[in-house]
């Protein structure tokens, strides 16, 4: 498992208070993990902090799944 995926998972598990095995790459924050729109904003901010990157609003809109987050962050930090 990539380092980014592990760190993203950890944040999602902590923030949304969900079981780790539910946090698969295809899991949607809202549809599968019970997040609301505010959670999404908070997750994006948590990713920004954890990886020391900036995620612009138009990119944040597309980060709806764990995989999408990992992909975006990997590209940014890659």
């Amino acid at each position: 498992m990539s380092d980014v995926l592990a760190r993203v998972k950890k944040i999602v598990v902590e923030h949304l208070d969900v079981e780790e095995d539910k946090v698969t790459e295809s899991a949607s924050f809202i549809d599968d993990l019970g997040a609301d729109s505010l959670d999404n904003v908070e997750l994006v901010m948590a990713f920004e902090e954890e990886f020391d990157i900036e995620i612009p609003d138009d990119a944040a809109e597309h980060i709806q799944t764990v995989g999408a987050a990992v992909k975006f962050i990997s590209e940014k930090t890659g």
Partner: protein
Amino acid sequence: MFSLEGKTALVTGATGGIGGAIARTLHAQGATVTISGTRQEKLDELKAELGERVHAIACNLDDGEAVDALPKQAAEAMGGLDILVANAGITKDGLLMRMKDEDWQQVLKINLESYFRLSRAALRGMMKARHGRIIGITSVVGVMGNPGQANYCASKAGMIGFTKSLAQEVAARGVTANCVAPGFIASPMTDALNDQQREAILSKIPANDLGSGEDIAAAVAYLASDEAHYVTGQTLHVNGGMAMI
């Protein structure tokens, strides 16, 4: 009741009459406070008076970047930020037909824009902590209007609308946002009124007296307390009955 033991608070405009009273009251209720303003010697005075559990950070609210940074600096100094009191405010009065662009912009910037910047910066930690209190000091004239104060009234009404939106966005996270709206509060400015002017003002106030900074501070302390967790998006009017809204 209404203990603020273990809580941390940032009060802007603490070098002024009402802000000083708010800082003293929150401190007396047990909170650690960060006082802010531009006049360093006033900050030092109040810091010395309060003794322990107090930090002073000078900040000019005219400087957007400095405003953005203030809540974080306060949180670092105090080990957290539970309560934000946006109290600093200015007036630049004049009839609308003669109002200068700068007088409009300056009042909106100090009174309203800084409230937005401070709240945005303070929210990050509050959302994480699942607890927070944002309190804006507005004014009765933000609801009633007042000739010669179109800019000031717009800024104070803006604070109320802003607070209601913010309150809805963050209510599910244990963060509340409310306003306190003072009426006529005794200050060096009201001390300078002559008897006739004073009479004219008092005739509009059923309580037949001006309010004090402590009256406002008590309302702030209530809204800041754990007991007020179910009160959000409200404006608490403290005005001796001059406007019943």
